[in-house]
C-alpha cells in the first residue's frame, strides 16, 4: 500500500475511507455553509443595530410597527430550505441503510468491553480485530450479549447501536487498504488511523482504523488507566476499541481459507507456533487455565498436561494427545475430567493453524 497516497481529512472531518463518506461529507459541508451564512447575517444585523441604536441622549426608541408580510416571509421561507435538507439527508440515509446484494457478511458480537468478529465459514478473527476486503461491500450483522453498545467507524461515517435481544445491521465499502505500518503510539500513524490494540504479546502494534463503541457501556470498579486486563482484553467503555484492517481481496480470501495468520511479533521466529500459541492462551484461555504448574483452578493447569492420563467423570480415561486437546477445545463438554464437573467451558472455534499453535505451546510447557 502506498503510504503517500492515503486519504486526508479536513479540519472538521476525518479522512474518507468508504464509499458513503464523500456523500455524507458533502451534505455536512452544505449545511455547514448554510449555517455560516445564517450566522453571519444574523450577527451582522445584531451588531449593526446594537451600534446604530445604542442608547444616547436624545435618541428615543420608535414604537414597534408590525409587518405581517415579513412575519409570514420568515416563517415560511426557511421551510423550503428545510425540505431540501430533509430530502437530501433521507436519501443519503436510505443508501446507507440498504446493503448491496453482493455484500459479504460478517457477524459482530459486542460484549463488555470487547468486539468479536466471525467471518463466513465460522472463521473467528482475533479479538477486537476486524479484517475486511477493499472495494467490496461488507454487511455487519451485530448483536450484544449484555448491554447496549454502538459500532462506530468515523472514517466510514457509519454507526449503529448493538442491542441485546435483537440483530442490527450496517454496511460499508472500504475504498482503500490500510497501510502496513508498525507503531508505538498514535503519533506514528497517518491521519485517521490509530496505533491499534496491544496484541497479547505486548509488541508490534500496527496502524489501523479505529472502531469505537459509541453507546455508553460502563466500567468495572478499580480500573485506572486505559490498560488491558491480563488477557489483552479491553476494560471499559472508553477502551472498547477495535482495530479495522482493510486488506486486498486476495489477502482476505487467504484469511478465510486459513484463518487468522500468526501475529507479526511471532513471524520469522523458529518457534513461531509456540509463540502464537502463547498469545492465543493470553487472549482466550488465561482467565481459567494457568501455565505455571501450580494452581489448578478453575480449570486444569496446562503445564504437564500434554501426554498425561486423564480420568473422566464417566469413569473412562484417555491420554492427553493431539486429538484429545483438539476435541477439548472444540467440544469441551464431550469429555469432562474428574473434579471439573461445574466448570462449563464454552466451545471455542479456532482454525487448524491456531489449534496447531496451541498444541505446540502446550507441549513446550512440558520441556
Amino acid at each position, binding site marked *: 500500500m502506498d503510504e503517500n497516497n492515503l486519504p486526508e481529512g479536513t479540519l472538521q472531518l476525518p479522512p474518507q475511507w468508504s464509499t458513503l463518506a464523500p456523500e455524507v461529507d458533502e451534505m455536512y459541508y452544505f449545511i455547514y455553509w448554510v449555517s455560516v451564512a445564517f450566522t453571519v447575517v444574523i*450577527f451582522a444585523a445584531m451588531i449593526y443595530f446594537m451600534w446604530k441604536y445604542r442608547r444616547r441622549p436624545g435618541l428615543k426608541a420608535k414604537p414597534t410597527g408590525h409587518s405581517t408580510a415579513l412575519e409570514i416571509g420568515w416563517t415560511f421561507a426557511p421551510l423550503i430550505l428545510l425540505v431540501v435538507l430533509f430530502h437530501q439527508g433521507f436519501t443519503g440515509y436510505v443508501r446507507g441503510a440498504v446493503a448491496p446484494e453482493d455484500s459479504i457478511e460478517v457477524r459482530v458480537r459486542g460484549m463488555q468491553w470487547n468486539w468479536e468478529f466471525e467471518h463466513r465459514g465460522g472463521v473467528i478473527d482475533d479479538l477486537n480485530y476486524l479484517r475486511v476486503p477493499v472495494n467490496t461491500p461488507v454487511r455487519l450483522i451485530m448483536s450484544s450479549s449484555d448491554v447496549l453498545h454502538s459500532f462506530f467507524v468515523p472514517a466510514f461515517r457509519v454507526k449503529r447501536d448493538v442491542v441485546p435481544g*435483537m440483530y442490527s445491521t450496517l454496511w460499508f465499502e472500504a475504498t482503500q487498504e490500510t497501510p502496513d505500518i508498525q507503531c508505538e503510539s498514535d503519533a506514528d500513524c497517518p491521519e485517521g488511523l490509530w496505533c491499534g490494540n496491544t496484541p497479547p504479546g505486548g509488541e508490534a502494534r500496527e496502524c489501523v482504523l479505529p472502531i469505537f463503541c459509541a453507546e455508553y457501556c460502563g466500567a468495572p470498579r478499580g480500573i485506572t488507566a486505559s490498560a488491558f486486563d491480563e488477557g489483552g482484553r479491553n476494560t471499559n467503555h472508553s477502551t472498547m476499541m477495535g482495530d479495522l484492517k482493510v486488506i486486498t481481496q486476495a489477502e482476505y480470501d487467504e484469511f478465510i481459507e486459513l484463518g487468522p495468520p500468526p501475529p507479526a511479533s511471532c513471524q520469522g521466529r523458529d518457534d513461531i507456533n509456540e509463540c502464537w500459541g502463547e498469545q492465543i492462551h493470553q487472549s482466550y484461555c488465561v482467565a481459567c487455565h494457568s501455565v505455571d504448574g501450580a494452581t489448578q483452578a478453575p480449570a486444569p493447569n496446562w503445564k504437564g498436561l500434554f501426554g498425561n492420563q486423564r480420568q473422566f467423570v464417566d469413569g473412562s480415561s484417555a491420554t492427553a494427545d493431539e486429538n484429545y486437546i483438539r476435541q477439548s477445545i472444540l467440544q469441551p463438554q464431550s469429555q469432562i475430567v474428574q473434579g471439573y464437573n461445574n466448570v462449563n467451558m464454552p466451545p471455542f472455534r479456532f482454525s487448524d493453524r491456531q489449534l496447531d499453535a496451541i498444541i505446540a505451546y502446550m507441549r513446550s510447557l512440558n520441556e
Partner: protein
Amino acid sequence: MTAEVAPQPHAHAPTGEGYLTHERGLKSWLFTLDHKRIGLMYLGSVLLAFLLGGIMALLVRAELLFPGETLMEADTYNQVFTLHGAIMVFLFIIPSIPAALGNFFLPIMLGTKDVAFPRLNLGSFYIYCLGAIVAIVAIVIGHVDTGWTFYTPYSARADSSVIWMTSGAFILGFSSILTGVNFIATVHKMRAPGLHWKRLPLFIWGMYATSVIQVLATPVLAITLFLLMMEKTLTVGIFDPALGGDPVLFQHFFWFYSHPAVYIMILPGMAIVNEVIATFSHRKIFGYMFVAMSSISLALVGFLVWGHHMFTAGMSEYATMVFSALTFLVAIPSGVKVFNWVATLYQGSISFKSPMLYSLGFIALFTIGGLTGLFLGILSVDIHLHDTYFVVAHFHYVMVGGTVFGFVSGLHYWWPKMTGKMYSEKLARVAFVFVFVGFNVTFFSQFVLGSQGMPRRYYDYLDQFQPLHMTSSGGAFILGFGFLIMLFMFVKSLVSGEKAPPNPWSSAGYEWMTTTPIHPHNFAEPPVMTRGPYDYHLCTEEELFPGFPEDFKPSEKAAKA
C-alpha cells in the same frame, strides 16, 4: 418636569415593610404561602444544585485534560459525569426559571396577589426538596454510573442505588407537574383587569407554554421510571432482554418525556430574553403575537420529535423518516424568535447593562446551538455525529448558552426587584466576559472533537484528540471563574449593595410598577392595566425614569439640543 418631583409609580402604596421583612423568623419562611418567598427558596435550592453540578463538570473536564488517568479511575469518572447530567437536568435546569423566577414574577406580572393555589405551591417546593434529598441519598450511599438517561439494560443491571436516583427524579416530576397546573390556572383566572391575552407579557406566554408541557409530558417520565423500578425490584421483564423486555422501548419512553423536557428548559430562557430585550431596547417585541405563538407551537411540535434521539438505535426506516421530517419543523418557530428579537433592536434605544449582555449572548449562542441542531436532524449526517462530542456541544450551546444565559440574564434583571439591592455593574460585566469567552472556548472546540469522531462519555481517548480536549478544559475553568466572580458580585450586593430604585432599568413592564421592596401583596392596591407591558410610547418619562438624571431622559428638549 424635573427629577425631584417625579413621583414614584404608585406613590400611594404604603411605605411599610416589604415582603422580606414584614414577617420574621424561620417559621415565617418554612410555612409561607407567599409565592415570592417560595420563589426565593427555590432560587436558593437551584443555585445550590447548579454549584454542585458545576463542580462535577469541572471534575469531568479536569479528568479529560490528558488521556488515561488524570485524577480518578474510570468508574469514578462515570459516576461524576452521571451526577453532572442528572443534577443539572433534574435539580437545576428544569426547575430553575419556572419554579424560581417564574414563581416570583408570574403573579406580579399578572397584577395579582399570588398564584391560584398557594398551598399547592408550597407543597410542590417540599416535594422538590424530598426528591432532591432522595437523589442525594442515592449519590452518597450508592453507585450511580448509568448516565443521566438511565438507559436499559445497563441501568436495570446496575447497582440498586439507581432505584433511589430514579425515585428522586420520579418525585421531582410531581413537583414539576404541580407547578405547571398552578401556573396554568393562575394565567387563566387571575389576570388583573385590563390584562387581556394580547397584553400578556411574553414571559407569561413562555411560562404558560412550559406549564402545558410539564403537565402533559412529566407523567410519562414518572411511568417510565416506575416501570424501571418494577423491573429492578420485581424482575418483571419490560426493558431488559434477559427477562424478555425490549431495551429500545425504554428509549422511546424516556425521550417521549425528555424531548419535550428540552422545551421545558429552553422556553423559559426565551421568555426571559423577550422581557430583557424589550426593556433594554425600549421597544415592544417585534411580531408580538408570532413570538407568543412560536412558544406554543414549540411546545406542541416538541411532543412529536422524540425519535430523533434514536436514529442509530434500531428503529424502522419509516419511523426514522417521519421523525427527521418533524424535527425540521422545530427550526421554524425557533427561527421566528431569533428574527423577531433582532428586528426588535432595529430603531430601539439600546442600553448594554449586564442583563442585556446576557440576553444578547443568548441570541448569539442560541443561533449557533439551533443551527447545529440542523446537522443532527439531517439523517445521513446524524449517523456520523450521533453520540459524539458534537451532540454534547450542541446541547450545551442550547442548554447553557440558551437556558443558563437566559436564567442569569433574568437573575441580573430582576435582582434589584427581588432583593431591593443594586449590584456592581462593573463586576457583572467582568463576569460576563469570562462566562461568554469561557463558554465558547469550552464548547466550540467540542464541535470539532465530535465531527472528528470523538465519542461521548469516554474516560480515555486517542492522543489525536488531546489538544482540543485541553482547550475545552481550559475554557471550562475560565467559565467556572466567571461564575465565581458573579457569585462574589451577588453576595457583595446582598451585603453592601446600594438601595435599588423601583424601576432601575426604566422598564414599562408590569413588575416594575410596584414598590421596591415589594409589598407583601405585590401591589398595595390591585392594579388595573391600561396599557401593554411594552407600550413605551404610552409611558410618561416619570414612569420610565423615576429619579434618573435629566440628561438621561430622551425628552423632546434633549432631542432638539
